[in-house]
């Protein structure tokens, strides 16, 4: 059995769904951030798969590297925010941080 583009895309879709699921269901902010990482990485898989099987060639890999860099930056900023939230509210449970509601 040969591995085709479709397999990659299926894996990517599954990973994406896990990421979405984690973002939507986790109550812990850290867990939400981890879900985001999954989503970003599913996108990376897509980039690489299209770079290998599609016409994107090297540009796909370049985009993936950019995404990794972005993810690192995002993680750094997001974790800093989470730390601050924890300092302020003494919790990282996103359900309890509902200041926007009022």
């Amino acid at each position, binding site marked *: 059995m040969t591995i085709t583009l479709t397999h990659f895309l299926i894996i990517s879709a599954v990973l994406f769904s896990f990421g979405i699921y984690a973002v*939507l*269901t986790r109550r812990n902010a850290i867990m*939400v951030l981890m879900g985001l990482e999954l989503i970003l990485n599913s996108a990376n898989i897509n980039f690489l798969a299209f770079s290998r099987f599609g016409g994107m060639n090297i540009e796909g890999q370049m985009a993936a590297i950019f995404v990794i860099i972005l993810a690192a930056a995002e993680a750094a900023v997001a974790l800093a925010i989470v730390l601050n939230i924890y300092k302020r509210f003494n919790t990282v449970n*996103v359900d309890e941080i*509902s*200041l*926007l*509601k*009022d």
Partner: protein
Amino acid sequence: MIPELNIALAILLLPLVSFVLLIFFGKRFMEKSGLVGTTFLGIDLLLAIYIFFSKLAVETRWDFTFTWIDFHTVVNNVPLKIDIGIMVDNLTAVMLVVVTLISFLVHLFSIAYMKDDVRYSRYYANLGIFTFSMLGIVLTNNYLLMYVFWELVGLSSYLLIGHWYEKKSASDAAKKAFVVNRVGDLGFFIGIMIVWMQFSTLTFDGIFSAIGHGNIPFGSNTWLTAAGLLIFCGAVGKSAQFPLHVWLPDAMEGPTPVSALIHAATMVAAGVYLVARTFPMLTADALMVIAYTGAITAFVAASIAIVQNDIKKILAYSTVSQLGYMVMGLGVGAYTAGVMHLVTHAAFKAGLFLASGSVIYAMHHALHHLNDHHTDAQDVRFMGGLKSKMPVTFWTMTIFTLAISGVPLTSGFLSKDEILAGTLAYSHFTGHSLIPIIGFLVAGLTAFYMFRMLILTFMGEHHDKHRLDHIHESPRVMTIPLMVLAALSFFVFFSFNPISASQGWFFQKMTYPTVAVPEAIASTPTVEFIEEIHHQHTMAMVLSVAVSGIGILLAFVTYFWKKISADAFERALKPVHTFLYRKWFFDELYDATAVAATLGTARLLAWFDGTIIDGVVNGAGWLTKLVSVFSGKFDSYVVDGAVNFTAYFAGLLGLSVRKVQTGKVQTYMIFAIIGFMVLLALYI
């Protein structure tokens, strides 16, 4: 402008200056006010005498006219413009002296008489504007300015008669004088309007020359007569002629010197002066009406004067009677005689009033001294025997009484004689024999009631010996005017011939004006008339001396020797006495007719106003209120309801929708993803 006219203008304006000074700075002058006013009038008198002599020396008339308003249109081939100006002819020159002289003496007299008055400076200010107005009447050369000054005289007489306005009777008398005068002025105004409509000019010259050229109002002789009579209406009001004479006796409520001024030289003289001025345009019919008006006035007033007890009331009715005489004189065509009687009467009537003022002053002080507040200081029945205590007042009063009674050697004799001769001539030409009969009858009555007053006041016994001790002669400042006026009551000032005035300067200078009306409707030509007067003169003189003599004799028999009992007569003729004492019931008649009608109309109008007009207004208000209540309800329920409901609905909507906004980021994301999936489902 001729230099003399500048002086004439100064004569006119000096009293006005006095008025302005005293009305604005009267408080500062205080008791000096009298001196200020008197000084101004003294200068005025000197200027008037100067004008008098320089005018009588020349034949020409001084006239200055300028166009006040030019309408720049032409009506009836005459440019439509209003000319006004001043004029001095012989009549004006004489009147100037008369007015300023009497006014000056009244000013002088009042210094003592009004000394303790509360409104001393106001009094002098009013005297000033009164004199100014009167001088304006005699100086103007057109009916427009004359009407203006005419009304000013009415106003200032109102102020002076009502000087003691705290007294109800005084303020009523002032109102009465003003209102009654307005009645006459209405006719005067209509007359002026007719003249203006026809001739487009109001100057005397312009009107008379237009009539002289055959231009008469609306081409009708009747209109010319009507215009003359309407102008005469003004004189009826001002000169207190029947039937508008009722205001004058009431005007006695003013201070006595004011009575002297109003009843001798100003105001009442204005009416006679007006007739004299209008003389050239009066038709024979108009003159006849005027003559009869004068005769009726003279008789009615004389008959009332016989029974009055108030010294000032007697003099008031004698004034009305003498004014009737003047008007009658002018009416019959004896122009010069009428004007002359105006002048001679001015002197002795002013004197009579001032002398009565002197008596009242003395009586008042005596009564005041004895703390007697019940006795009337003006009632002749409480006087008597004042001769020895007030010699100057008595002797001057005697001279004035002789003059007004028409006793030879006095000025009154000269003028009255000429008027009576005129009435005889008039009856000779026209057959109206009633007029001379009334004339002679009134002459007798006048002599009777004047001597009655003199005897009751000064002779006989004073019925309260104690009071007589407190009566003193008035101060010098009051007696000097009396002496001056007494001197002027002698014949020499008017004619050197004591029995005939026709050779004197007055008749030489005061010639008949040229009659302007068409010959067909004019009265007897002047030349023939004067001729006839000369024929009748001796007869008139003899008759007038006889009737005056009888009148005087009767007065002495009744009141001095008491051979005839006046009381018995009074009881025997009770209805007649009451009729005369109540002044022929004129006041009652007018109260019942004119006053009641006016008040009735006023009440009707007030009812109409209060019920109908106010009803409509209030109804409209009520309706508006009703509508506004509805409108308010609509506003608060419908409009506000809609607005509130919108807000409430929006709030309700918000409440239900706000549940979506949980504040949870994950929920939002779910929405975003669901939304995305929906869009995806729609487009794929």
